């Protein structure tokens, strides 16, 4: 079980909403804190990757369970 300090439920939301929500939340976190994003839009996999590249934040774990995508992002 990965510990996280903040969570976004973006299930049911389509591009560009999940990534916009994640970007907003990451701005509020302090360095080292972890954000858990759960999304259902397949496009969010690529979108979150691009977001992390642009923010220089780190994906510590990503998985798919029952059609839901879970991303654990560590704020740099």
């Amino acid at each position, binding site marked *: 079980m990965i510990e996280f300090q903040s969570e976004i439920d973006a*299930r*049911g*939301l*389509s*591009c*560009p909403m999940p*990534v*916009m*929500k994640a*970007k*907003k939340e990451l*701005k509020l976190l302090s360095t080292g804190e972890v954000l858990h994003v759960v999304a*259902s*839009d*397949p*496009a969010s996999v*690529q*979108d979150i990757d*691009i*977001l992390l*590249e*642009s*923010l220089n934040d780190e994906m510590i774990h990503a998985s798919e369970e029952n*059609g839901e995508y879970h991303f654990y992002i560590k704020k740099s």
Partner: protein
Amino acid sequence: MQLEITTVVLLLSFIVALIMGAVANKTNFCTMGAVSDWVNMGDTGRMGAWMLSIGVAIAGVLLLQYIFEIPLASTFPPYLTSNFGWLRYLLGGFMFGIGMTLASGCGNKTMVNIGGGNLKSLVVLAVAGVFAYLMTKTSFYELLFHGWVSATTIDLTAYEMPNQSLGSALLVVFGSSNNELFHWLVGLLLMCFFFFIAFRSKDLRSTPHNITGGVGIGLAIVAGWYITGGSLGQEAIETVEWLDERPVGVGVQSYTFINPMGETVSYLMDPMNTLLITFGVVAILGVITGSFIASIFSRRFKFIWFYNTEDMLKHLIGAALMGIGGVLGMGCTIGQGITGVSTLSIGSLLVLGSIIFGSMLTMKVMYYKMVYEEASFIESLITSLVDLNLLTEKFRKLEKL
């Protein structure tokens, strides 16, 4: 069994659309996503793919004109018409840009999403299709738009411009009579410009799937022009002229998605009438099928439905704006943004710019509203306009994000 020539044209158009849908699905080619990546994350990979597809389409069309003399002066829709409806292009493109952002994708992406199991996009297709139908087949356009569109349309022949191609504009500016020379010169320059914009992006250069997407979609547009405007297409047009009962929408054209949504609604209202099966209808069916196949093979097919009422409302409003704006601007991000621009039409370039602006502005407003929950729509809008350098910093209402 010998197929009628119009059926052969439709079959080939379907096959190309199918490949287009599969490519868009596999490479995640998305014009709204391109704007989103750029505005929200500063990533230009997908924007580069879009620009690359335009460059490829221009190169292909120039080649087709050189080899097959494809008649771009009489296309469907008339991208190079001498009636320059600048306001309809600007407003239509702007509305479409807002619409596609709210509805989670442009016309092409809507079809790709449907193929992937997204039922929200199926609703978007239905609603945008109904509005496109209203705009093209009823008095809706006449009542709301015709008056001011006519009043603001400029007849370019009065300025000795035969049509609205960039070459014609330069012809007048430089007072030359060598139309051919200017056409080729402008075409080659515009092609180089889009290739330069595309490959200047490191994000594009470092992502082979984006390059594949851009080249694939650009080639599909060229293939559409070749099928309908080459020898086969020309023969089909001539054959249809002799028929008592003519199929709808036969002409030189390539892929576009909003007017075809209206044509699909029209066909579904009378499904036994095969004369209503147009290039646009098979294009829509082809992209959905191609995307569906790609989704199944990549095991990404998944049914998606609205998250809540707000999500549904957002998509419905977006779809209505796409249907109206797409017809008013005579095309979408693919129809005007790639197909139209490949004819070197000034109107298409205007629509392309308006769509991108409408989408960027909508994304910025949405983001400000999301971060500053207490901020009003007007405050978010004004601040977004400041961000886009359309208002000075003194107007800023919210702290820059």
